């Protein structure tokens, strides 16, 4: 149990022109489940590897449980890790794999066996303890990797995309299991993923990364509902947030966003943007198809029945907007749909900086 503090971590790989992480600072509370989320190449894995001690930062500091570990060897940091490729030892039986860390640390054999059996029981690996990993399926191998990590009683648990090599169904069930397991253990966890659903479902907090920097770090609902930038809104959600850019027009009854034909009410707080471009961000599931009394009219281009919902691709004055409609919704192509845009679901962005504008 320990809190983790990362301060201004800089890392540039030899031969690279851009920084892999650019002065990243992050504080993870004791027992918190922190998820690092971002597209590939955003520096999330580099950050994790620096915490693990597998990569040395060029500048900055890493503190675990009040102790500086910035340049310490991995084995002296008292952490454990689950690798994307599982990284189970093919030359050791499952039991020896799980007990590996304990054995290396010189824990007595009886104690090792007791802990291995406890972890195996927790992850339903008991029937496989005497097998070699080659005889296991991918999901079972990942269980071995997780079991190997949790027997250590480490201060910090690091996970590098542990579910990404599993098939979709297995990923879903193992995700829930993992969440239960980690919350029971209460270990401080740093979890790297590029899967936004995984991040939202697992994390106490989610740090969204881009180009070596943290774009936003907040609770999953906050990150999803109030994306701090257009990048975060566009990265989270499936389909992602819609963005509509127009010019703010000053009218008698208040400011309106002119989308080139149609227009939309702009909150009074943003009247300073009169005459300037402004971007509206709205989630596809927030938009409702109305019976003629909607604020905007969009031309239906594609209707995709997805089972649990129907995904509509509409065109509003040349800008594409995705709408999530009820599964029973049917309409003909090229039909003009009236769309209701609830004001409370609208987020406003400055197109120049693409950052969220505070309205409340």
């Amino acid at each position: 149990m320990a809190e983790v503090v990362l301060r201004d971590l800089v890392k540039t790989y030899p031969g690279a022109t851009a920084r892999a992480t650019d002065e990243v600072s992050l504080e993870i509370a004791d027992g918190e489940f922190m998820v690092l989320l971002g597209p590939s190449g955003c520096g999330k894995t580099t950050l994790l590897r620096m915490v693990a001690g597998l990569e040395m930062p060029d500048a900055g500091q890493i503190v675990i449980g009040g102790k500086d570990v910035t340049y310490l060897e991995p084995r002296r940091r008292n952490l454990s890790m689950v690798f994307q490729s599982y990284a189970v030892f093919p030359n050791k039986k499952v039991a020896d794999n799980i007990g590996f860390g304990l054995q290396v640390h010189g824990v007595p054999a009886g104690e090792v066996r007791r802990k291995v059996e406890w972890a195996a029981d927790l992850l339903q690996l008991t029937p496989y303890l005497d097998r070699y990993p080659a005889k296991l399926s991918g999901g079972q191998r990942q269980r071995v990797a997780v079991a190997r990590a949790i027997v250590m009683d480490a201060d910090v648990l690091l996970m590098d995309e542990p579910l990404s090599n599993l098939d979709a169904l297995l990923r879903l069930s193992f995700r829930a299991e993992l969440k239960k397991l980690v919350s029971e253990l209460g270990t401080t966890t740093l979890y790297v993923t590029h899967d936004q659903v995984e991040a939202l479902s697992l994390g106490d907090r989610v740090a969204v990364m881009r180009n070596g920097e943290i774009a936003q770090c907040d609770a999953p609902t906050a990150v999803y509902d109030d994306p701090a930038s257009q990048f975060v809104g566009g990265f989270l959600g499936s389909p992602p947030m819609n963005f509509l850019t127009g010019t703010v027009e000053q009218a008698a009854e208040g400011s309106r966003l002119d989308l080139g034909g149609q227009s939309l009410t702009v909150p009074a707080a943003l009247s300073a943007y009169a005459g300037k471009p402004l971007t509206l961000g709205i989630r596809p599931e927030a938009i409702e198809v109305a019976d003629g009394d909607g604020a905007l009219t969009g031309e239906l281009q594609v209707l995709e029945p997805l089972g649990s919902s129907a995904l509509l691709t509409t065109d509003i004055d040349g800008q594409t907007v995705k709408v999530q409609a009820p599964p029973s919704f049917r309409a003909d192509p090229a039909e003009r749909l009236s769309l209701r845009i609830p004001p409370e679901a609208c987020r406003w962005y400055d197109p120049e900086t693409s950052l969220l504008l505070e309205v409340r």
Partner: protein
Amino acid sequence: MTTELRQPVESTGAAATLPPVDLAPLRRRRVRAAWVQAACIAVTVFMALPIVLIGLAAVSSRNALVQFPKPLLPSEYSTETLLAFFQATGTFPALGNSLLVGIYTVVWSLLIGAPAGYALARYAFRGKDVYQVFVLLVRALPIVVLSVPLATMFLRLDVYDTVFAVTLVHTTLALPTTVLITASIFVAVPTDVEEAAQVFGCTRWQAARKVVVPLALPGLAASSIFTFVLSWNEILGATVVTLGHRTLPAQVLTALDEASTAYRFAGGFALILPALLFIFVMRRYLVNMWGTTLR
């Protein structure tokens, strides 16, 4: 309330109009497979026939040696030929020398070459490519060119005509290939397995010993087979740096001119046999260690 059962749509009529199954591609595939088989057999016969013939000759009697055409199985087994070889002066010491040189060469080239191969596999360092080419340069020089200066140096250092001298020459010859082969072996051992070992409490050295070496063992075995056979078969260098303490091939080569036919056949067989045995022993490590064929 009525429940309607949906009937699966039956395909009607379509089956009747389907074209007949075209078996020609299947037949072509089989013919091709047969050709590959035949080629495999041909290569095997080409490789194995000399070994079989020399083996047969070695267990035949002296009279049978001159028979032509040779019977596929010898009419009478006899230890006469082999005895003639082993009773010849210098055979046993030479055999011992050869074995010692072979084993020492394997040990030394692995001790020196494997760490170099590991470094090549794991680290990016300045001059890596140049180093890889440079390592091979040793093999570009003819052995004679290497051995003569070595012989004079060994004479000066008073190690001439010893197993140690031959070991040095063979290790030098084996090192380039050992370095490059082990490098490709270590590349195949996943980095994250090693990193996992480090995270779970190993030093770099422990991680190498507990995880990397066991995983690299099949490859290291293959590499040592290669080295052993290279040392066992090497004649020129061994001849130049020894005089009285010859290795077996050097000994056989020197004695070949004045030797009897029996000595030649038995000598040839004795030269093949240990290398074959070594390969059979090490073969176990090549594949199928933990229930899987390793890369």
